[in-house]
């Protein structure tokens, strides 16, 4: 369970910002949680002051602005982010990719770090704009299987959260089954 290279096997690297947006983060230890909590606090403050939630694109552009400001400071935050959300007005789902340089891109599917090299080709091949939830989970399973197969380290499974019109929820995601060689 714990060892020289693994400090925790069940770390939740996501933060819920408001009713309909979730932010996943990775990067330098310390920076990640500090920055994520700072963003979460400010988005929650906005919701309390205005009695309304910011939409996903407004949240994404706010986070980008804060990260871009930090980029040109004495000690920039080294954080990569994925922002998912449902627009409360148009009811459309949104996904934003944001790296530590504060490059913002709206995407149909996204990953950070080594997962990009392993997963984006699978998603290029199998993702279509009109897939339903079950098909999406199937493609996600292909991605996590590929990571299990090819990543040189054991990343101790996955935490999967779903954002839809009913809000944000965590789902059971079994990773105990052995993955066969391709």
């Amino acid at each position, binding site marked *: 369970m714990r060892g020289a290279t693994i400090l925790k096997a069940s770390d939740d690297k996501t933060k819920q910002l408001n009713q309909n947006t979730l932010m996943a983060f990775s990067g330098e230890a310390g920076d990640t949680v500090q920055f994520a909590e700072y963003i979460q606090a400010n988005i929650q403050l906005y919701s309390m002051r205005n009695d309304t939630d910011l939409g996903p694109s407004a949240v994404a552009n706010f986070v980008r602005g804060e990260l871009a400001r930090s*980029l*040109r400071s004495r000690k920039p935050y080294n954080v990569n982010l994925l922002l998912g959300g449902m627009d409360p007005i148009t009811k459309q789902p949104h996904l934003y990719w944001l790296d530590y*340089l*504060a*490059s913002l*891109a709206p995407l149909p599917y996204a990953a950070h770090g080594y997962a990009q090299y392993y997963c984006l080709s699978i998603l290029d091949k199998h993702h279509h704009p009109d897939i339903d939830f079950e098909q999406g989970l199937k493609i996600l399973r292909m991605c996590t299987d590929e990571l299990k197969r090819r990543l040189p380290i054991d990343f101790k499974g996955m935490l999967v959260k779903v954002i839809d019109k009913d809000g944000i929820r965590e789902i059971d995601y079994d990773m105990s089954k052995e993955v066969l060689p391709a």
Partner: protein
Amino acid sequence: MSSPFAINGGACVAMVGKDCVAIACDLRLGLQSLTVSNNFPKIFSYGDVYLGLTGLATDVSTVSDLFRYKVNMYRLREERQISPQTMANLVSTSLYEKRFGPYFVSPVIAGINHKTGKPFICGFDSIGCIDFAKDFIVSGTASDQLFGTCEGLWEPDLEPEDLFETISQALLNAVDRDALSGWGAHVYIIEKDKVTKRLLKGRQD
């Protein structure tokens, strides 16, 4: 290979025609050789003036947002649209403010001056030195290739339809010779009282 101008990739070009101008950009956003997005436009409109921004993606967003703010403030103060020439000076001074810690972008401006009716294009380096041109302006990681295709294809006094064909072929053939640019294009043809925006598919490799 770690120049901030060449991390994300991208290309932009502007051309003058007969009573019209054109500006076009590619749509790629990458991290070195990995393509992250194929829908990252680099041309932004500010009333009648069009600004193309290549270079570091974060600064493309920062600078385009900054000029949205500055041009909106200009329009409220002056109660009129900004002219391309004024915009060029605004871009130049804004970039030079960051002389010793610049935005890593190479801007391109295209528009028609509504007072004189004359087409106007210009380009900049990252610290705001203006490059006025009578023919065309190129920028981005495919700028070497764009110089070649533009020198080969451009001629004076092109009509809007011919200018569209010229700038499109110049861009498409330049980005196909650059690994960091491509994946589709946006082309704007700007006439006196009409702007046409076209989306080009381009090679998806």
